[in-house]
């Protein structure tokens, strides 16, 4: 299944699950849950991180964390 890293700018997806429990716990505590709709807004100017929008909130996460987010 694709992960959030596979999305291009302005593409959306729905979260299926997370591949790492520690990251899952952090993300979920911030309201990024399985079933949430996520949109990749843009990549950071010098790479390394992405700007995402999940359930009307904006977040910045690193590529490593984005790769843990499995999409439907």
């Amino acid at each position, binding site marked *: 299944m694709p992960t959030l890293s596979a999305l291009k700018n302005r593409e959306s997806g729905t979260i299926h699950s997370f591949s790492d*429990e*520690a*990251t*899952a*716990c*952090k*993300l*979920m*505590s*911030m*309201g990024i*849950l*399985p079933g949430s709709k996520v949109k990749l*807004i*843009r*990549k*950071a*100017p*010098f*790479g*390394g*991180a992405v*700007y995402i*929008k999940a*359930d*009307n*909130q*904006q*977040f*910045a*996460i*690193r590529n*490593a*964390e984005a790769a843990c987010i499995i999409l439907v």
Partner: protein
Amino acid sequence: MTNISTKTLTIALLGNPNCGKSTVFNQLTGLRQKIGNFPGVTVDKKLGKLALENGQSATLIDLPGTYNLYPTSQDERVVLNILANPSDDYYPDAIIYIADVTQIEKHFLLFTQVRDLGIPMVLALNMADAAAEQKIQYQPAVIEKLFQVPTVSISGRTGDNFPQLKSALNELITKPFDAPKSFYNFSDAEQTISKKIQKDYQLDNQFQALIWAQNANRLTFLSAEKKATISDIVKNNDFNGLANQVREVMQRFDRFTPMLKKAVQRTESNKITLTEKIDDVLTHRVWGPLIFFALMLLTFQAIYAWSSVPSDMIEAGFGSLSDIVTASLPDTWYRSLLTDGILAGLGGILVFIPQIAILFFLISILEEVGYMARAVFMFDNLMQRFGMNGRSIVALVSSGACAIPAVMSTRTISNWKERLITILVAPFISCSARIPVYTVLIGFVVPSATIWGIFNQQGIAFMGLYIVSIIAALGSAWVFKKILKTEERSFLLLELPEYRTPVFKNVLLTVFEKVKTFVVEAGKIIFVISIVLWFLASYGPSNKMELAEKDAISIATQNNLSDDATADLVAGKQIEASYAGHLGKFIEPAIRPLGYDWKIGIALITSFAAREVFIGTMATIYSIGSTEDEGTIRERMAKEVNPTTGKPTYNFATSLSLLVFYIFAMMCMSTLAVVKRETGGWKWPIIQFFFMTGLAYLGAFVVYQIFS
């Protein structure tokens, strides 16, 4: 809760980051705040006085923002260690839980966790004003009924409904408290473990026992033995902590999300928000970094230019105060202590206030607006390569004006290692105090000529000094990244909050608090060192100082010198005879390989107070202490001849070596005092002093040996 009148109550403010907690705290306490550190860590501890309705006063503590009770940063560990330990000094008698009502679901995870700890709690639904703008409707009474926690809707920004919040709090603490039934359904494994821990350690609350099981090794109040026993219980029951955390978080969300739907009505829209439109520009691939650097340039310029007038006024004020004292007191040791020790020390502390105030005024506006999170997002990758954080850039740029506010500004970096590296390397960046030293010395190294008719060679050399300082900062950051070990896993999960207009009360309180902290905490150390330096420069072994004075006066009479010239000559001879002079001569063998004589040695010692003191000391040593003009001092230095070689002392090699020394050396007691305060001990400032000065020595040595 029967004896409330006999003891001061502790009320805690708790909530997620960005819930508007500080604004509520400032509304509730105003200037009645005390800021310090939590023991053992450098996490801001904000305490305030809160007047309760019955006339009693309570201590209000602002706990760091956190998302859950499974911490991943220092800030969050502080919260866990207080809430999981009923015998902690700051264990709250009641909690005001702040939730941003416009993003309510996210704020309810920690809310239901704390509710299950059985601590009396009021829920404050904050940002009522923003909710009205976004046409969100909600019924606090429904939430209160569903979650069995008293609920008030407030607005921290406008101060709306604060009386209601206070009376809800009052009712909570005056009435007997019955903890509501646990919100969370324990699994069988969690039941077994938590019951066992509850029984073994006589804990009243079952969720507290589960938190102990999940966090045993992060709880500082447990003895090593207890930690081991709890870890064993967890292991023997085959309990997978992390998987259970995920399950718990999931279950809580699954339960409260439908409940909240009954109380909050929102029209979901896919409209692109204003924040998104602004971010299209501010985090743009090209415009984003450009705008950031423009803002940083403005900040740098502001500290540099705007602070010079008030700083000069403070200096001039202390100068004339010192003149008045000199004129009105007889020439005694206590006059000298008063003018050259105490007043000089105080002036040396207060002169930094404009720079600190201006930097924090600008930074906290950027922070309040929500821009800082964007800076972190943009520069995270770049700064990670050097072991730092996106926020570190702000500190590094500010360091170009002054390292003191820069070091103080690192508090918002939550990862300890990233913060420490930023603190350690920021003072390398050439600050404004190095400029007078560079100005005097650069003339001995580079002729004042132009290349291709446009570029002034000295100007280019100046730029070179700055570039070298930046390379030194980033290079040593990279080295520290490799050396320093941390257990904290580095990640970036950062909320990019909606842009908001800043609350000026918050901005001004931040400025006030930073200035106060500097004056009180770092000021003490700077003051003591000033007095020590004064003593070293004013006293000498046995009667050498008096002999030096007599000697100077007799030379002056023979040569028919004016009063000023006589005084200058006395000062010059005296500093040579002082302890500082002796120290200068003592270290001469060590600094000769760098091309320095004992006179430069004295200036190295005295300029530990601050780099620019180098110039003043050189003037005193060369008996032209009454002048303050850099040009005059440079002319005098150019005439100085080395008695053994008969050649000018300030030749190319020595001057370049001194320049290199002043780029790298940690010659600023005020910065060290601030580093001590910000790292919570003497360990890091001492390491910093030795590695920076060591690098300076090495650099100066290499340069001198090559060019001499």
